[in-house]
């Protein structure tokens, strides 16, 4: 079964810590995305990547960075965690190929609920 795996379901970190959220996909997808989800605000795009070592800012990149050294792995980094980064973080991937079942739709991971105290 194809999937996107996020390394942690729940995470508690202290203010000022450097936090790494890991995401791995096994579908050979070119595109990977990081979103945060907050009540009433829906999904907001933080960063995305359409190729290895490529990254682009989304709508809310401040306070975050990303790394994509291998095609299957996309990491989100909180350089210095703050309480306003407490949120649900969702990773997703998609294919750029027109053929296949995806037709550009996303496959999501299960999410990481991060609490910064």
């Amino acid at each position, binding site marked *: 079964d194809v999937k*996107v795996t*996020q390394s942690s*379901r729940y995470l508690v970190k202290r203010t000022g810590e450097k936090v790494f959220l890991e995401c791995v996909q096994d579908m050979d997808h070119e*595109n990977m*995305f990081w979103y945060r989800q907050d009540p*009433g*605000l*829906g*999904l907001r*795009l933080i960063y*995305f*990547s*359409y*190729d290895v070592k*490529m990254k*682009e800012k989304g709508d809310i990149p401040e306070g975050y960075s990303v790394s994509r050294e291998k095609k299957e792995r996309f990491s989100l980094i909180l350089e210095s965690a703050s309480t306003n980064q407490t949120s*649900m973080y*969702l990773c*997703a991937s*998609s294919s*750029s190929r027109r053929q296949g079942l995806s*037709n*550009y*739709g*996303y*496959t*999501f*991971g*299960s*999410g990481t*609920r991060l609490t910064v105290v």
Partner: protein
Amino acid sequence: AQSVAQPEDQVNVAEGNPLTVKCTYSVSGNPYLFWYVQYPNRGLQFLLKYITGDNLVKGSYGFEAEFNKSQTSFHLKKPSALVSDSALYFCAVRGVILTGGGNKLTFGTGTQLKVEL
């Protein structure tokens, strides 16, 4: 720019009754449209998509959606609701023509569906 509107934060329906969750979109050219469902503390799961062809699209768990180009709508429907359908539903859109890397989907803010006995 592309956008999605889900005008209802919450929809309440009795079990066995039909349900509709509304979605309207704005995009340049022809759209790719998607519905996703999210259960508590989980990632988003794909329900159905409209790419081309019949305006009535059938998806998972008995859900269907009707594409209406003139009204730029893609409402999610189910003839008979179940309590287990209670979840958060997201509509998403992207244009057919690639405008840049990443194949980004734009999501609505979500509609909470509550099905009661």
